[in-house]
Structure formats: C-alpha cells, structure tokens
C-alpha cells in the first residue's frame, strides 16, 4: 500500500516551558493526490505546523512522516521530494529568474535541468522577465517565480503558505488554476495554509480548522458548510474563530 503524503501523530510544539503550546497534539493522515487546507486565525498554529512538517522546527513531541520518511531522522530523503513556497521568504533579488531556478535545480538535483527550467518558464509565462533580477519584479511576477521554484523538482508533496496573498484576482485565479493542473497531472499532494476561503473552497478536498494549536474541526468544504449551516467557508471560519455554536447543535 502506498504510504500517505503526510502522517502526523501527536505533533506538539511548546516554545517556552510552561506556556500554552503553539501546536497541541495535532494528528492527521493526508493521502497522496489531494489538496488539503490548513485554516485558522493569526496565532492558530499554521506557520508552526508547516515549519515542523518541513523539518525547520523540532517538535516538542509527536512525529511527522513525510512521504514515508521520518522527519526527525531522515528528513533529507523527504525534502528532496518536497518543496515549499511562501510570500514571506524571498529569492535572492540580484539573481535573475533563470539563475534562481538554476540554483534550486542544482540544490534539488533536477535531471535535465535546463529543459525543466524551459518548461517552467513556458508554463508560468516567465519568458518576458526570465533574465531580469528577481528583485525588479512585481508582486504577481514574484509569486509566479516562487511557484516555479517550488515545482522545480516536481515535488510529490508541496507545502504552500498563503500562495495568493497580495495578488490581484486575475493573478490569484491564474495561480489556483496552475496548482489544480499540477496536482491533476502529477498526483502530488498539496497542503496550503490560506486566509482566502474562496481559494480553499475551490482547491481543497479536505480542510483542517486550527484554533489555539488544535484541530477543532475538519472535513471537506461541502461537509463543513453543511455542518455549520453556512453558505461559504468564511462564515464557517468566523463561527469557529468566535466560538459560535454549530448549526447541527442548535
């Protein structure tokens, strides 16, 4: 049987001894080939969770198996088949787009790298600025480049932190289509943290609702809407964030 994209058991992170955990006993199993959403307000534990899934942060307890590899003992085997993008982490801004893609092509050991870069330049429509320094690009162009970088190694597991933050609706829609296309073509698993509920509704097969470092609810967007008796996920999000009763409990 194929190992899940992510198997998370009892994941907990406490930054200061005695303080409330930032992430508290998180457990879930994410299959391959699906897009999942990680939702929660500021301080809910999304960034801490993603950092632990990537091996950037050592959990206080619990474990993460990414693509079958234990992130505590074998993270580099998993990292070679994963990738990550966040608007809060930049690419070297003096290097051109093409040079940046080459750097990460080497770091991820991409075979036939120049062909892969040419494919990504064509797919993400980077041709007009592929030889311009990354620091001179607009926010939308930078997001497309960051996404191209995140797909350079054709990852089986892609983690995205607010992939369409600060993008105009047209570019945001374009990015969402690209993600849907990538998942459909490669069977990759995508976990995205987002504050854009329409995006989550459109892309995600399953949603984990985080509050105070815990999963307070989960399910498909349709199931959550039915459960809370709401018309859109934003209202569900507000119900959970503000501790309102569920429709089913009324």
């Amino acid at each position, binding site marked *: 049987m194929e190992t899940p994209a992510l198997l998370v058991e009892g994941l907990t992170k406490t930054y200061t001894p005695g303080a409330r955990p930032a992430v508290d006993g998180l457990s879930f199993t994410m299959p391959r080939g699906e897009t999942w959403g990680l939702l929660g307000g500021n301080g809910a534990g999304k960034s801490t969770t993603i950092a632990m899934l*990537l091996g950037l942060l050592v959990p206080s307890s619990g474990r993460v198996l990414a693509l079958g590899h234990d992130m505590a003992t074998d993270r580099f085997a998993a*990292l070679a088949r994963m*990738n990550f993008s966040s608007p809060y982490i*930049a690419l070297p801004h*003096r290097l*051109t787009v093409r040079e940046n893609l*080459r750097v990460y092509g080497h*770091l991820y050991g991409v075979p036939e790298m120049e062909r892969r870069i040419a494919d990504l330049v064509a797919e993400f429509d980077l041709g007009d600025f592929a030889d311009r320094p990354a620091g001179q690009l607009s926010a939308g162009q930078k997001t497309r480049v960051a996404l191209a970088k995140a797909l350079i190694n054709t990852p089986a597991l892609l983690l995205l932190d607010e992939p369409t933050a600060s993008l105009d609706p047209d570019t945001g829609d374009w990015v969402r289509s690209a993600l849907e296309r990538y998942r459909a073509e490669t069977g990759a698993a995508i976990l995205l943290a987002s504050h854009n509920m329409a995006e989550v509704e459109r892309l995600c097969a399953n949603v984990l609702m985080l509050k105070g470092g815990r999963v307070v609810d989960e399910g498909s967007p349709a199931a959550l809407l039915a459960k809370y008796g709401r018309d859109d996920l934003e209202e569900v999000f507000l119900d959970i964030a503000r501790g309102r009763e569920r429709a089913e409990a009324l």
Partner: protein
Amino acid sequence: MGASSARRIWGLVYRHLALYRRSWPRVLELMYWPVLQMVVWGFITAYLAGVQQNTATIAAGVLLGGVLLWEITLRSQMGFAISFLEEVWSRNLGHIFVSPLRPWEMVTGLAAMSVLRTVAAVLPAMLLAFMLYGFGVWKLGPVLVVFVSALMAMGWAVALAVTALILRHGAGAEALAWGVMFGIAPFAAVFYPVAVLPPWLQPVALSIPAAHVFEGMRAALIDGRIAWDHLAWAVALDGVWLALAAWIFLAQFHQARVRGALLNIGE
C-alpha cells in the same frame, strides 16, 4: 562525497558566483582593502629599508609577508561568514534550509566561496607587492602552501563560530563577521615574534594557529629554515579549532531548529 552532494555544493557556489557577476561593487570591495593595506605597508617598509641595509630589507620582507598572509586569514574568514550573511540579507535561508542541502554541504560550499573570494582579494595585492616593492611571497618556497592552508583553515574555524552566533542572535551579530579577526590579530604575532608579548600572554598567542604560521614565516625569511615544530602546532591547533567551531555550529543549528529561528533569521 557523492555526485549528488557535489551538485548541491555547486548550486550554492553558483548562487554566489551569479551574485558577483551581477555586482561589480562587491568585486571591487573584495580587492580594495588588501590592495590598500599593501600600498600603506609597502611605503612604510620602503621607508624603513630606504638605506638599503640588509636588516632593514629583511624586516621589510617580514612586514610585507605578514600583511599578505594575515590578509589570507582575514579574507578566508570574511569570505565564509559574509557568504552566509548574503543569504540572511536576501531572506533566502528558509528556502535553503528546506532544500536537501545538508549542513556539512552548506559549510563546504561556504568554504569554497571563501577560497574563491580570498584568491580574488589577495592575488592583486600579491602582484602589487612584487611590482612595486619587489617582494614575492612565493619566495618562501613550497612551505607557503602549508602556511596558506593553515591560515585559511583558521579563518574557516572563526567563521563557523561567527556563523553559529548569527544563527543564535540573527543579523545583529553580523558586526562580528567584519571585526572579530581584528581582535585576534594582536595576539597572532603577525608582525612581531611571540617572545615580544608579556609572558602571561604568550600561552594565549601560542594557542592561535596563525601565531605558529607567522613564527614559521619569520624562520623562513630570516633564517632560511623551515620551522617544522611550528608548522605541526599550526596544523594540530587548526584541527582543534575546527572541531570546536563545528561543534558550536551544529549545536546552534540544532537550537535554531528548536527555537524556530531558521525561517526568520534577521535583525
């Protein structure tokens, strides 16, 4: 080292080479200080050797040799630490640390950049010393290779410790990348023998690899002999310094993963 490791290390080196290709002020800055140092010290030694006495000429060689070899130590340390700081300044560390690049591969890549930066920085100063003052550091003979290697290794050890402090304290510790070697220089016996130092300070000096290299350099220039004992001490101390610095680096790297600092190292 496997082909995969070599490729990842090359990826890191390529990243910095691409940066320098696109930034001529960085290349100019590399050469500026070593050349300036050589000009100033060259004229001082030319003044000292003005009467063409043998003693003064030898002293001039010792001073110019000291300037050049100390620049190698300094540039080796700065080349390593500043290459790491480039990642901090560009807010790129998060991407680096979620790639399959192992910590030792990153250290090897930074050391490779340190070699390239040192060559670019010190070579013009060496040529200048020869053209203007007739001093060829290669006159030290094949032992020069050991001197240079020992000094570069010491530079890497100091740089590893500085990088560990940057991991611990963020870019707030970056001043150390520029200044830490200047604090070591007075005890490294660059321009004077260890014997000149007060007796209580001599053990401190003798625990620094560079002090043995410079004692060895003076033995070669003044007495025309190879001081094997000093060379052995330099190499052994480099091993101790590198092991200690690697331990500090790995400990701080682990602590940075515990504290969650790798994603947002900054000020």
